[in-house]
């Protein structure tokens, strides 16, 4: 267990050693840039604009990813959809991580009944398959982006509680921490200097992984029609819309799917890279 905060420079240096980590980061960066373009509307075409005369055309110089049955540009829609997926996922995971980590640390540190309560609560949520729970919550709350985001946040909070709680429990029992408590150091200081450094690494890794799951869940929800509503673009929704025409217009199915896959791969590689970079044992398996 580390005794001092890992210098960011050190972690970054090790991260750069891993090719997969770099690849992942690049893929992720690509998607983030793409989404930013979508946010500012820097798209070749309006994602909602229907050009019926160009419907069901394959990739061309005007429509890079081709068009769907309504003549909408799949490229622009994919970018817009990516933006939506990322927005929902990032906000969901931010909420889940903030609440989860806080609860996890508090739970581990304070112990006793509070700890038991939190653990039971998170077990309850863990008992549900992710999509199912998100489905159920979305069905009651509604499916605007922030409601979907909230639903996904609920689903992924327990894992953060667990990830944060673990190191806290271990470190709490270490002799050197016990000594500081005897010496009368304030809890806050112990938390900051000893517990936080050991908790940051697993959490950062978990954020990357949870983001990838969140994107899959969000696209799953929109595929089922319970996320973004038409005519807005969402990657899952686009796949769903592509179902009837996929045999004649493979691009309508391929490109949104590829986007989802790329961002999930990117996040997973980044997560692995982070894990290897931040793990003191630094094993490359």
């Amino acid at each position, binding site marked *: 267990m580390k005794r001092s905060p890992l210098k960011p420079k050190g972690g970054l240096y090790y991260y750069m050693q891993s090719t997969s980590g770099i690849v992942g980061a690049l893929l992720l960066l690509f998607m983030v840039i793409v989404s930013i373009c979508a946010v500012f509307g820097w798209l070749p075409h309006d994602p909602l604009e229907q050009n019926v005369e160009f419907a069901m055309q394959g990739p061309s110089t005007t429509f890079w990813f081709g068009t769907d049955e309504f003549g909408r540009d799949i490229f622009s829609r994919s970018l817009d959809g990516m933006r939506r997926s990322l927005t929902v996922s990032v906000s969901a995971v931010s909420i889940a991580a903030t609440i989860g980590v806080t609860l996890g640390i508090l739970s581990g540190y304070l112990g006793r009944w509070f700890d038991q309560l939190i653990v039971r609560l998170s077990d309850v949520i863990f008992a549900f398959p992710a999509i199912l729970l998100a489905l159920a919550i979305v069905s009651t709350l509604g499916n605007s982006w922030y409601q979907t985001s909230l639903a996904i946040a609920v689903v992924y909070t327990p894992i953060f509680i667990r990830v944060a709680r673990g190191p806290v429990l271990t470190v709490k029992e270490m002799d050197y921490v016990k000594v500081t408590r005897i010496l009368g150091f304030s809890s806050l200081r112990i938390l900051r200097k000893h517990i936080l450094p050991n908790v940051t690494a697993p959490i950062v890794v978990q954020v990357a992984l949870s983001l990838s799951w969140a994107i*899959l869940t969000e696209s799953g929800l929109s595929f089922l029609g319970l996320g973004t509503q038409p005519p807005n673009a969402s990657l899952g929704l686009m796949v769903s819309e592509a179902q009837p025409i996929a045999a004649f217009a493979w691009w309508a199915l391929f490109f949104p799917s590829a986007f989802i896959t790329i961002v999930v*791969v990117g996040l997973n590689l980044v997560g692995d890279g982070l894990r290897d970079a931040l793990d003191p044992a630094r094993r490359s398996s």
Partner: protein
Amino acid sequence: MSVGERTSRILLSTPVLRIGSIFTTLFGISIFVFLVLRVIPGDSIVGAFGIETGVLTPEQIAQLKIYYGIDKSLPMQYISWMQSFLTGNMGYSYSTGISIASLTAKALPVTIELALIGTILGVVMGIAVGTFSARKPGSIRDFAGQLFGLMALAVPGFVLSTTIVTIMANKFHYFPNGYEFVRLWEDPWMNLQQMLFPGLVLGIAVAAPVMRTTRSALLETVDKDFVRTAIGKGVNSRKVQTRHILRNSLIPIVTMTGIQFGYLLGGAVIVENIFSLPGMGRQVLYAITKREYATVQSSVMVFAILFITINVITDLIYRKIDPRIKQ
């Protein structure tokens, strides 16, 4: 901590095996499900009654009222629901007038069969690829294996399903799921064909984490001292592989399989939808779109109970395999 010890710790630290804890968790789950669905304004539940009353008999409406605990305070509503649920009154479906309990009884076996097939396929694939990868770590085959694992994880189930459906139905004109669903005991051959593709999609989703676990468990075990002892005794390499390496790697693999089986239940929602399998997943989805809250509530509850049951079973199996755990 090794993979095996870590998974042991996780399983042991979850209160699953202590009976009291199981019940507390189930209790917590029921409250959770109850609360989540109570966010819905009461009038829409009652409102539904008014519109669809034609389908339900007076007795059924009465039962439904007890199920929902209409006109009672919130805590009483919960108690009313729990009492109904535990005595078999899972409410009634507005659109069809059939009791949800019987709908569930019909749908549950389908989902369980699907999940089983998916798990078996996934575990076989996962262990195969994982072993293949672990033989020569860092080699091309390892890279290929890990790439497979990554793709299996990253390509969403619905994408895979849609692709399969498109190719099979349109290019090969082979689509068993286009026909009406048959049960396993009615026509085993047809049933298995109908389960094949959805099972495969779910299996691929399971294969990814199983492959990862297998690979890391094998790699970790291979370096262990007792493997060296076995080789040093003159045990032939096949027996070293099976009796020493594999047997010790099993524990995390079994644990992971158990966890995955549970998550398959969720993945089944999408797959059942695309392949038109009349299982619990489709039931829930249908109920959500039709605003049949009783169905959603009961079905989600059933799912959770199933999940916990699987965890318990996994835990029991796991205890049989690892003699270090004391009963």
